[in-house]
């Protein structure tokens, strides 16, 4: 199979390695080094997609990041990716590409009817048409529009690839390896600066690969190779290809997207697919180059119409002809280089130059080679539907607002050049306010906000000599300020062709009695007439015009359309372009994959997993885990075919009847030391702390300054100036920050130190009527009687040879103890407890049983401390001291906190004693009342009371205890349940608290 448009020898591809791939099912081949685009063009394929709105046939337009049309669904290396830019994606063996936005096929697309109905699809069509009835939007209009429009299809398969993030720091980041970038990086490297040079394309050199120039008697390509190999040999330089710096963020942080292995056929298991680099650069040199812009004319979106520089790149880099009968349409000299390249490859181009006849180095050379040049000419309209076949051309009059001598010329491609637009995206993202440069009809960077400098074409310098000079000078000066060394650099001699002035011409007038679409923005199908409509309808701000017409939006971000759009608006408005201004440039510069943004933070690596020292034991004993922040806690220990409900009931019942142990390592623990520790606790907690004896624990309540309960827990006085505080698992980090805030900022005069010891101690609670018996077996030499170790008592003792702390505290409401040992001994402690506890019927219990036990006791936890409750709301006003000041005290006097009808904690039981009340249910008087049904409160925690063998819930309810004895409904629209309930006390079991003191 031959490739009809492949040149015999030109190009930088590897002709020794064929790569087979398919396009829309058709088997084709290309060479190593091809992009999907170059391989398709080599095979004579131009029709690759349908346009967004009108479903017009579309082909390739550019040769790189500027491409607006050729977005394909690509399957390779086992995954499917939508919206892949065919001009950037390198060919890999077995790749399969398909066209998007067409049905049933790109050749015959039903949606193309839109093209013939285009008078019904003006700018703002969707806004105007799908307005009413309102109810139709969600169910009918939106799904329809989404189906009709849209790009590729996202895969629903799990992405098996590996993505990575990398943080890097450097003195100088250079973005782009064209002449100015190479010069900057080289000069800075010679000064000893730590340099990163990033190049988006696989090949370094930028325009040096395609321009007919020489530097120090080397061709541009050879010079680039020489510099790159020297840079690669320097230890202070990182050189990266296939790496797009796409975002410029605060404080000189730039983000780079590296395509690590998409181009590889085989890779090791640990090679990531793509990598995201966060680069903190002291200085940045933006050598991002420029992008050619088109001239607008009729049917200028027909396949076979290219940017002229792209046509040249296809020849020089890929050895591919975009056509064999080219028409070159230009307003400047650069397209002449494309014409000469065609000529060199024995293809006869015709040049249409909008300028009047004149002379320049390039024009003269083209003339001497016998190329047909027609001055003051332009393309009026391209003919052909799926591929350009001919063009209607005409001679422009002096004012260039009409033409005569209209004729039709045959052609198979049109290469268009409307001059160059500097790529100022990164500069603009950095906060640089751009300025309009009249000389080049485009914006260039102005005053900098961050440490960035644009050089070369990105700064509007379009000659090689100037680019190199700026590059070397800036690279040297900027890095010298950092490294304080300045190496001698000689700026090389340059041989390049001199360009004449360009013509400020960007749009062909319409022919008489004809109205072909003249597209400004290909990707969004925005034509000249759409922008005219937007302005006629009163849109003035360029940002509004952009949103109304979608000009410059979507994946190509208007790279080829922005400037022409601005020209059009300023022409109609009779303004100059800088008055119209430009739309905001936002990251990312090019689309990047979601996988790269996410990096390794998926699945197990989404967040750290915290495991207690006893985790392995829980695993071995069929624990079903639940996430508590980053912690994994056993929810229940499954026996046989038990359900969660059955297991938790069994475990809780065993605590009430015998004894159970629970892993409480996850509770926050804070060590507090210092002579002012008691005074500090006295200010932090609502209750009194000055008189807590050594060896005693106390339950404490902590408020925020606004009076809301922040956390609760026990704190134990270990010695004179040493306290051990516990917090809830969820609030551990916040409480520590809170304490540090007051110690460092508010009361620095207090001599107190705090440190988290959560990870240092393994904790196990022993709870149940038989817990003392079990404890005495664990500590045979210790007096554990009620007198020696009373409720809220504390002892330190030896636990089978390891030091331990014993706290007599209880969350379950049973007689209970909590043992702490150093984490390393946690497993030893747990296994000993299981062994010793056997004779007492000891069983481990999980968080579900723990919740059951605390709920039926009326002990509050997270669901009650929901950021809205004050101490009296949860029946803890007894803990609020009236005698002393503490954090949040002044807020408790607020009127709203003291109204009688305030929602407070109560207990609820279902009238039928059977139906479980869903958490979150609303409490209402009348379940059949008209909506919105007045809400009297909500159910915060629910359990199956093992003590009374029926459901029980805690609720926060209007009028609180005054409601006891009354009946209401707990309704849960989510669960579709309505349960009649009776209000009772929140202390359902052992209201006097006898058990904990027994």
């Amino acid at each position, binding site marked *: 199979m031959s490739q009809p448009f492949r040149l015999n020898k030109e190009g930088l591809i590897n002709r020794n390695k064929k790569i087979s791939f398919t396009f829309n099912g058709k088997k084709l081949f290309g060479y190593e080094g091809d992009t999907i685009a170059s391989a398709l063009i080599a095979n004579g394929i131009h029709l690759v997609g349908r346009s967004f709105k009108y479903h017009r046939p579309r082909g390739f337009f550019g040769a790189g990041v500027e491409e607006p049309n050729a977005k394909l669904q690509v399957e390779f290396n086992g995954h499917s990716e939508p919206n892949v830019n065919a001009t950037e994606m390198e060919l890999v063996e077995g790749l399969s590409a398909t066209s998007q936005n067409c049905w049933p096929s790109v050749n015959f697309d039903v949606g193309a009817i839109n093209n013939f109905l285009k008078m019904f699809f003006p700018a703002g069509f969707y806004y105007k048409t799908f307005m009413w009835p309102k109810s139709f939007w969600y169910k009918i209009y939106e799904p329809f529009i989404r189906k009709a429009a849209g790009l590729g299809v996202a895969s629903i398969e799990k992405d098996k690839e590996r993505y990575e993030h990398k943080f890097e720091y450097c003195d100088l980041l250079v973005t782009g390896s064209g002449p100015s970038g190479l010069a900057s990086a080289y000069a800075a490297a010679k000064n000893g600066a730590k340099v990163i040079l990033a190049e988006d394309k696989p090949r370094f050199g930028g325009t040096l690969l395609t321009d007919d120039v020489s530097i120090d008697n080397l061709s541009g390509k050879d010079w680039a190779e020489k510099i790159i190999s020297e840079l690669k040999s320097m230890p202070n330089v990182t050189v990266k290809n296939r790496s797009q710096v796409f975002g410029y963020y605060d404080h000189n*942080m730039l983000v780079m997207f590296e395509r690590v292995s998409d181009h590889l056929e085989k890779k090791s298991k640990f090679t990531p697919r793509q990598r995201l680099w966060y680069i903190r650069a002291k200085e940045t040199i933006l050598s991002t180059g420029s992008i050619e812009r088109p001239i607008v004319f009729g049917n200028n979106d027909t396949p076979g119409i290219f940017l002229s520089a792209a046509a040249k790149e296809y020849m020089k880099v890929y050895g591919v002809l975009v056509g064999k009968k080219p028409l070159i349409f230009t307003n400047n000299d650069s397209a002449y280089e494309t014409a000469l390249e065609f000529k060199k490859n024995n293809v006869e181009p015709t040049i249409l130059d909008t300028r009047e006849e004149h002379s320049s180095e390039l024009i003269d050379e083209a003339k001497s080679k016998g190329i047909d040049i027609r001055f003051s000419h332009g393309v009026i309209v391209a003919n052909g539907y799926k591929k350009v076949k001919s063009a209607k051309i005409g001679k422009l009059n002096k004012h260039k607002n009409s033409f005569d001598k209209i004729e039709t010329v045959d052609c198979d491609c049109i290469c268009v050049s409307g001059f160059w637009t500097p790529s100022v995206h990164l500069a603009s993202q950095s906060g640089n306010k751009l300025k309009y440069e009249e000389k080049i009809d485009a914006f260039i960077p102005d005053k900098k*906000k961050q440490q960035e400098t644009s050089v070369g074409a990105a700064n509007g310098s379009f000659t090689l000599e100037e680019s190199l000079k700026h590059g070397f000078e800036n690279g040297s000066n900027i890095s010298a300020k950092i490294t304080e060394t300045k190496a001698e650099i000689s700026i090389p001699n340059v041989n390049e062709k001199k360009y004449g002035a360009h013509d400020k011409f960007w749009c062909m007038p319409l022919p008489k009695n004809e109205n072909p679409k003249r597209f400004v923005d290909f990707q969004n199908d925005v034509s000249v007439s759409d922008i005219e409509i937007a302005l006629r309808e009163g849109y003035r701000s360029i940002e509004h015009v952009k949103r109304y017409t979608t000009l410059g939006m979507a994946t190509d971000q208007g790279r080829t359309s922005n400037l022409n759009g601005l020209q059009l608006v300023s022409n109609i408005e009779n303004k100059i372009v800088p008055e119209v201004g430009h739309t905001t440039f936002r990251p990312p510069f090019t689309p990047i994959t979601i996988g790269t943004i996410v990096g390794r933070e998926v699945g197990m690596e989404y967040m750290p997993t915290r495991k207690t020292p006893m985790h392995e034991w829980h695993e071995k004993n069929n624990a079903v885990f639940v996430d508590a922040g980053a912690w994994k806690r056993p929810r229940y220990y499954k026996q046989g075919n038990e359900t969660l409900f059955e297991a938790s009931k069994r475990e809780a019942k065993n605590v009430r009847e015998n004894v159970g142990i629970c892993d409480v390592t996850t509770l926050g623990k804070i060590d507090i030391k210092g002579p002012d520790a008691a005074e500090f606790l006295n200010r932090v907690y609502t209750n009194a702390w000055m008189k807590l004896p050594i060896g005693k624990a106390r339950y404490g309540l902590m408020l925020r300054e*606004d009076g809301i309960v922040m956390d609760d827990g026990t704190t134990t006085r270990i010695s004179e100036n040493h306290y051990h505080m516990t917090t809830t698992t969820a609030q551990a980090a916040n409480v520590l920050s809170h304490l*540090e*805030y007051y110690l*460092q900022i508010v009361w620095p005069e207090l001599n107190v130190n705090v440190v988290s010891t959560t990870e240092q101690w393994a904790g196990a609670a022993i709870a149940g009527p038989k817990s003392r018996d079990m404890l005495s077996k664990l500590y045979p030499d210790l007096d554990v009687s009620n007198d020696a170790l009373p409720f809220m008592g504390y002892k330190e003792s030896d636990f089978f040879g390891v030091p331990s702390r014993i706290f007599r505290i209880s969350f379950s409401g049973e007689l209970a103890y909590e043992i702490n040992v150093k984490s390393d001994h946690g497993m030893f402690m747990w296994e000993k407890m299981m062994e010793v506890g056997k004779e007492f019927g000891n069983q481990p219990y999980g968080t579900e049983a723990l919740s059951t036990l605390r709920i039926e006791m009326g002990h509050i936890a997270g669901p009650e401390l929901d950021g809205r409750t004050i101490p009296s709301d949860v029946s803890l006003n007894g803990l609020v001291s009236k005698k002393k000041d503490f954090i949040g005290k*002044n807020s408790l*006097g607020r009127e709203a906190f003291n109204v009688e009808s305030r929602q407070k904690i109560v207990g609820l039981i279902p009238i039928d004693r059977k139906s479980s009340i869903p958490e979150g249910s609303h409490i209402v008087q009348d379940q059949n009342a008209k909506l919105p049904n007045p809400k009297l409160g909500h159910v915060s925690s629910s359990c199956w009371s093992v003590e009374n063998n029926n459901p029980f819930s805690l609720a926060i309810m209007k009028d609180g205890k005054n409601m006891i004895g009354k009946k209401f409904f707990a309704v849960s629209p989510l669960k579709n349940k309505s349960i009649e309930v009776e209000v009772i006390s929140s202390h359902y079991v052992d209201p006097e608290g006898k058990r904990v003191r027994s």
Partner: protein
Amino acid sequence: MLYIKCPYCGLRAQKEFSYGGDATVKRPNINEEVSSEDWDNFVYMRKSPRGKHIELWQHIAGCRQWIKVQRDTATHEIFQTAKVTEEIR
């Protein structure tokens, strides 16, 4: 991502810090009478200036010190950082 100079540790990425609000708010003294108006101002009322703002950050994944940062809320420019015991003018 901001680049914040911790007075104890040096330049560190924003990821290591957590934000703590206006640094110029002073808590009424403990154990002293305070009018409810002053208390309300302390608890609830904050300015939200466009421009220079002295704020608290905690170097939570570093030295755990609370620090003062003078930052432009519109441009994110950081003019000065200091220990909480130091003044920023």
